[in-house]
C-alpha cells in the first residue's frame, strides 16, 4: 500500500532542511535568495520583502531565473510550510540545487511573528475595475495607476480650490491626501466648495472632506490637519508629501509655503482667483522658478483685496482647482508638459486663456541658494510680514 500524502510529506521534511522565520530574516540580509512558491493570488496579498515569486507549479521551468547558481543558498516558503517542503525536495533531488531550505510555518507564521510584509505592486480586481479608464490610457496604465496610489498630496485648504481638487484626486486614486484646514463648513461656502454638503454645515472641513472622499474612494487615506498653516507647524506637516496643492487665501502663508517647499524640494501647484479670473502655475524647486522669483514682494494691502471678503463666481475655483488637480496628476505620472516656468491666466467672462513666462531669478533670496542653507527663521519672512494682512481689514 502506498503511503498517505501526510506520510510522504513527513518523509520529505525529514530529508530536507527546515528553517525558522527568525533565521530567514537574518539570511535575507546575508544574501540568501528567498523564493515564494505560492500561487499568484496568494503572493498578491503580501509577501516577504525582497522575495522572488516562482509558483510551485512552475518551479522546474522558472526557478533558474530566480536562482541561477546550483550552489546558491535558497530559502523557499509557502503559506504554511508544506508546499515549500515539496518544492525544496524537487530543487535538491531533481534540479541539483545544493543548499535549499524550507521555511517552517510559511508566510502565516512570518506574519504572526509581526515581521515586515511587502504589498506587491498589483491592483486588486476592484481597483482594475475602478481605474479601468485610466488603465486603458497608455500614459497611465497599471504603472501610472500605481504611482497615483503611492502618491502623497497635501491640499492647503478644503475650500473653493481644494474641494474640486480633492474630489478628483481622490477619484483618480491618489493614495494619500493630506488636508490642512482649521475652518468649519459654512452655508456660504456651499456655492463653490463642492466637497461639503448642506447637512454638514458647522462640521470641521477636514472631517467633512474626509467623509466625501471616503465615500467616493476607499483606497484613499485622508490625513487631517485641523490647523492654520503657519511658521510653527509647516515644517511638521510638509515633509513626506510629494506635491502640495496651494489654495491659500493670503500672501504671508503663500510666501511661507514657498520658502518651506523650496527647502524641502516639494513642488507646489498654485492657483489664485479673483472675481472672474484665475491664475495657475507650478513651482518646482530648482527645476523652475519659485513664487518669490515671480513675485519677490507681496503687494500693499490695497492691491491685495483677497485679505478681505470678495465675490467669486462659484464655478471659477472649480475650474482652477481642477486645473491644479490635472497638473498634480501630470507631475505624479511624469507625463506631458507641466506648467513649470509658465503662468496661465484664465478669464471666465471672456472665455480666454493667456500665458506668460516665469523666469528663475538668479538673485532670488530663497531658490538661488542650496536647500540646507535656508534656515527655519527665514521661512516666509518679510520686513513687514505680520503687519501685512492686518492692514487690509
Amino acid at each position, binding site marked *: 500500500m502506498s503511503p498517505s500524502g501526510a506520510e510522504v510529506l513527513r518523509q520529505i521534511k525529514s530529508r530536507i532542511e527546515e528553517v525558522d522565520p527568525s533565521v530567514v530574516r537574518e539570511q535575507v540580509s546575508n544574501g540568501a535568495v528567498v523564493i515564494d512558491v505560492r500561487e499568484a493570488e496568494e503572493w498578491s496579498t503580501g509577501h516577504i520583502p525582497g522575495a522572488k515569486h516562482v509558483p510551485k507549479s512552475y518551479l522546474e521551468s522558472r526557478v533558474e531565473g530566480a536562482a541561477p547558481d546550483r550552489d546558491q543558498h535558497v530559502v523557499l516558503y509557502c503559506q504554511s510550510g508544506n508546499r515549500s517542503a515539496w518544492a525544496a525536495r524537487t530543487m535538491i533531488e531533481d534540479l541539483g540545487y545544493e543548499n535549499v531550505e524550507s521555511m517552517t510555518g510559511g508566510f502565516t507564521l512570518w506574519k504572526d511573528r509581526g515581521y515586515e510584509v511587502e504589498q506587491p505592486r498589483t491592483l486588486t480586481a476592484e481597483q482594475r475595475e475602478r481605474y479601468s479608464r485610466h488603465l486603458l490610457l497608455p500614459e497611465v496604465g497599471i504603472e501610472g495607476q500605481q504611482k497615483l496610489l503611492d502618491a502623497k498630496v497635501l491640499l492647503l485648504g478644503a475650500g473653493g480650490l481644494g474641494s474640486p481638487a480633492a474630489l478628483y484626486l481622490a477619484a483618480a486614486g491618489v493614495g494619500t491626501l493630506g488636508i490642512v484646514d482649521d475652518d468649519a463648513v459654512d452655508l456660504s461656502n456651499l456655492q463653490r466648495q463642492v466637497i461639503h454638503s448642506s447637512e454638514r454645515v458647522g462640521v470641521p472641513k477636514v472631517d467633512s472632506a474626509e467623509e466625501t472622499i471616503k465615500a467616493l474612494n476607499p483606497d484613499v487615506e485622508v490625513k487631517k490637519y485641523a490647523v492654520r498653516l503657519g511658521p510653527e507647524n509647516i515644517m511638521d506637516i510638509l515633509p513626506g508629501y510629494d506635491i502640495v496643492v496651494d489654495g*491659500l487665501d493670503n500672501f504671508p502663508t503663500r510666501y511661507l509655503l514657498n520658502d518651506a517647499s523650496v527647502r524641502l524640494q516639494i513642488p507646489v501647484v498654485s492657483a*489664485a*482667483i479673483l472675481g472672474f479670473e484665475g491664475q495657475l502655475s507650478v513651482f518646482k524647486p530648482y527645476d523652475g522658478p519659485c513664487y518669490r522669483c515671480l513675485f519677490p514682494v507681496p503687494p500693499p494691502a490695497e492691491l491685495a483685496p*483677497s485679505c478681505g471678503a470678495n465675490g*467669486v463666481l462659484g464655478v471659477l475655483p472649480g475650474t482652477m482647482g481642477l486645473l491644479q488637480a490635472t497638473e498634480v496628476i501630470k507631475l505624479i505620472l511624469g507625463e506631458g508638459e507641466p506648467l513649470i516656468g509658465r503662468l496661465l*491666466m484664465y478669464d471666465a467672462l471672456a472665455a480666454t486663456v493667456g500665458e506668460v513666462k516665469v523666469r528663475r531669478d538668479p538673485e532670488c533670496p530663497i531658490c538661488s541658494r542650496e536647500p540646507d542653507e535656508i534656515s527655519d527663521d527665514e521661512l516666509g519672512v518679510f520686513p513687514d510680514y505680520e503687519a501685512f494682512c492686518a492692514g487690509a481689514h
Partner: protein
Amino acid sequence: MAIVKIPPVLRAAVGGEKELSADGTSVGEILHSVAASHPETQSQLFGPDGGLNRYVNVYLNDEDVRVLDGLETSVGAGDTLVILPAMAGGAA
C-alpha cells in the same frame, strides 16, 4: 500704440476697462501714458523712484520686461502689454 491688459485689482482705477490702448514706443512710455490718463494707477504701477513697483510684473506679449530692457523695452504696434500683480485669492 499697444494694447494694455488691466488686471482685476486695477480696473477700478481705469473706469472698469479690461484693456486699454495706449500710445508710446517703449514699455515706460506706454505705462506712463496709462498713468497720465488714469492717475490712480500711477502709485500702483510706479514706485517713488520712478521704477516699476516690484510687486507688479509687466509682460511684453508673454515675456517679463525685466528680462528684456525693462521700461526701455521697445514696443511695436500690435504688441500687448500684460500687467500682472500678485493675486492671493484662494477661495476659503
